């Protein structure tokens, strides 16, 4: 796949369709992959990678990149395409400056899980037929995919690309039976005290590094309320030991109905806080109150929490209808 992608990227650069490519390159470690912009064939040859460590959702980078001169090629995994659509719906990216190639994803590996298995000196990874082949300096090792896959990928909602100009591989399908709400249901079954204790336990570990917000494709505000001393919110969230909770509660409300459940927040959290559970609770509630709604599935869809509709009930209107 990596070779195919590199080839297409070079062709599109060469024929002038795009002048930049947004993809992934290896970081300090081969498994520590970061988003990168490539401007020449040479740069692509030197650093472009696509493997099962390429977890980062590239959509958010387009907020800045699509405003620059010329068109940019972006590679999007299925879940990233939902974020892309959501950003499009919110007018955050300029579609005409972007060329989207959909690339398949069968679940990204969690390097922490591999390390916990004692695998060392990792240099690469490929998945085939439910097995990861982990390349290491000591030779290849195989692992059952389910044992080393990232949590979010184990309950992946969709392998379908909801937007693209071109596809490499198949379009993929929505997984209607994914079990992504299992944990939410467990939380719902708890008593309020138990639930409070659960979230205090999780959220009090937060070090306010802001990684979750910075990676979140719904958090693209020109200036976040938490960075704006005038908003009156940042101080609020810093006033007591409850501050992390307020930060997360406010953020969850800001992304409610807009979060596509891409799982980036939990992926990047250095403290392993399961932030996606907050968002999933909202998603589940929205589905139950207003009918199934998947943010980003359709950029034209009306967001249930953010639309004024003629059929909307007025406050206090009773049930006699």
């Amino acid at each position, binding site marked *: 796949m990596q070779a195919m992608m590199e080839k297409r990227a070079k062709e599109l650069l060469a024929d002038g369709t795009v002048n930049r490519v947004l993809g992934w390159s290896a970081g300090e470690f081969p498994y520590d992959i970061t988003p990168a912009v490539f401007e020449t064939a040479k740069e692509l040859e030197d650093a472009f990678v696509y493997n099962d460590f390429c977890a980062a959702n590239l959509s958010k980078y387009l907020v800045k990149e699509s405003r620059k001169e010329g068109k940019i090629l972006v590679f999007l995994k299925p879940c990233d395409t939902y974020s892309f659509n959501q950003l499009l719906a919110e007018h955050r990216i300029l579609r005409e400056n972007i060329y989207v190639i959909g690339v398949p994803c069968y679940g990204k590996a969690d390097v922490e899980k591999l390390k916990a298995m004692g695998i060392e000196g990792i240099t690469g990874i490929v998945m085939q037929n439910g097995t990861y082949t982990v390349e290491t300096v000591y030779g290849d090792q195989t692992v059952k995919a389910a044992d080393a896959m990232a949590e979010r990928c184990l309950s992946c909602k969709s392998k379908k690309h909801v937007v693209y100009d071109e596809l490499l591989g198949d379009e993929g399908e929505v997984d209607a039976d994914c079990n992504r709400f299992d944990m939410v249901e467990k939380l719902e079954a708890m008593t309020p005290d138990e639930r409070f204790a659960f979230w205090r336990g999780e959220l009090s570990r937060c070090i306010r590094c802001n990684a979750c917000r910075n990676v979140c494709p719904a958090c693209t*505000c020109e200036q976040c309320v938490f960075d704006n001393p005038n908003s*009156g919110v940042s101080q609020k969230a810093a006033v007591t030991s409850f501050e992390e909770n307020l930060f997360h509660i406010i953020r969850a409300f800001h992304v409610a109905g807009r979060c596509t459940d891409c799982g980036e927040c939990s992926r990047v959290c250095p403290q392993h806080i399961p932030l996606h559970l907050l968002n999933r609770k909202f998603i589940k509630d929205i589905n139950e109150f207003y009918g199934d709604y998947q943010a980003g599935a359709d950029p034209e869809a009306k967001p249930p929490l953010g639309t*004024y509709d003629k059929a909307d009930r007025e406050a206090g209107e009773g049930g006699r209808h």
Partner: protein
Amino acid sequence: MQRIGVFVCHCGTNIAGTVDVVAVAKALGQEPGVVFSTEYQYMCSESGQQLMRAAIREHKLTGVVVCSCSPRMHEATFRKAAALEGVNPYMVEIANIREHVSWIHKDMAEATEKAVILGRAAIAKVHLNAPLQAGESPVTKRALVIGGGIAGIQTALDIAEAGFEVDIVEKSPTIGGKMAQLDKTFPTLDCAACILTPKMVDAAQNEKINIFAYSELESVKGYIGNFKAQIRRKARFVDETKCTGCGICTEKCPQKKVPNEFNMGLDNRRAIYIPFAQAVPKVATIDANYCTMMKTGKCGICSKVCGTGAIDYTQKDTVIEREYGAIVVATGFNPIDAKVYNEYGYMDSPDVVTSLELERLMNAAGPTNGTLLRPSDKTHPHTIVFVQCVGSRCDETDERGKPYCSKICCMYTAKHAMLIREKYPDTDVYVFYIDVRTPGKNFDEFYRRAVEQYGVHYIKGQVGKVVEQNGKLHVQASDLLANEQLHIDADLVVLATAIEPDKTARSLGTMLTASMDTNDFFTEAHPKLRPVESPTAGIFLSGVCQGPKDIPETVSQASACAAKVIGVLAKDKLTCNPCVAHSDELLCNGCSSCEKVCPYGAISYSDKEFRGPNRTTLIRRVASVNPAVCQGCGACTVACPSGAMDLKGFSNKQIMAEVDAICK
């Protein structure tokens, strides 16, 4: 730092009876920024206002907090008083310690504590208040009346009388509404047509009034003084300017099997029709659902017989756009569908009729030319049973009925009973009722005449079942006073069905952003003090669309409504509410979240250039609010994630400061 004055009102004992007002004034006097604090018996009175004005002068106050009743009552009063002393009216805040405190609490200590807390919140807000200047907007001197029943007609006539233009938009082919279908009217028993049709003609002839019949409102934009409405003029397939209403087409049309809605389906009309002889405008209309020409392309008789060439089978709906300064809703009512009341056999026997059907059966222009005959066999009924409150006054769990009293049924049934006994003395008339409700001038006298002079049998009790048996209607009922079961073999059963707002009312309410109650009646701005205005500025209410009414009440309300409309149209300029939203372009993401929730369509977008890093420029999409359209509802400010959208006079910060003051 503001110099704030606090004024705690006793409201007689309304507040002082439950709140220790002296303690409240004392406690609030300690708050930072408060340089004067006092209490007084009636702050809204002339002397109360004088006291406030003197304090503003003496203590050089920059802000005022009044702890009193709801701002809906006296905010304007106190703002005016402050303005007279040169303090910007928007520097006045009200802490509602009556509705929010004294009226809902019993314990004095607790109530006093809460009053202090609410006062503190208001003080915290005043610290962040900024003077606001209200702008002005022009007024289009024309009114729109939606619905051409007696309510709409009366309102339009009164507005026109004052010299302003009025358009009536009526969805059916003629104005007149339900009153045109009635026979005689209580309490004076004059014939409905005789008193209504002259008014219809007046409306048609008045050069200030435009009647758009067979038309519907398509959309409304704008705000008080400046509405823009699109009106769909449905195709009649008859050129209104050519048709003289001679009616030859309606005689020659071979399609004779169309249920006649004007006669409640009791007889048939043609596919081309004029609803009734005195229709206004008196113009024929082709019912495309039944017209043979429209359906098969073969016929065209009406076109051949029409002497003026008015028939046009290819006519299309047209949409016209008109501007208005004020809008009147006069969409009236309909009886509920009696179908759901199976126990009364409405669907089983044609001799079970509703009261409105009975009006047509008694009307000289009706299907029986005014002779009361049973629909089934066209014989004269000798025993008639009236069932009151069918679908009215039902308890909340009853899915079929309405919780309210339809108000007019007791009186029109007394009317029906009396008219029948007068004309056909050999008829036995029974009325089954829960209570007889006859408040109104000469109403109870009217009802007593039915009982005492005309010998109508009023029975307090309920009808359980009506079954058709050998050409008779077997009525099973209970007499609650005699405590016995009754069995009556009747020839005709009349159901006084509840009335409900027209089905179009709800979508219209949404279009106009005029609020309505759970029963789809439009709500008034204040049930006692502003009964003909909707809470939405510029929208007024006339007739039964606001609640059940008889004709006298409808007409008085219609005139009252006209007076309010004239009050708007007579002004050259209106002051706008300065508490509108605005967006901070530097923070705006251009995400459209605000636009999607704005019920008034006040938000639009433009691409603007901003300075980027390293001397670059960046084009960004940003929101802006049209302050003339914005109603200050604040929906956008909560939808905006980045806090770019804020409401003047109710900024996020002010509200936070209030919450903080309460939680302190």
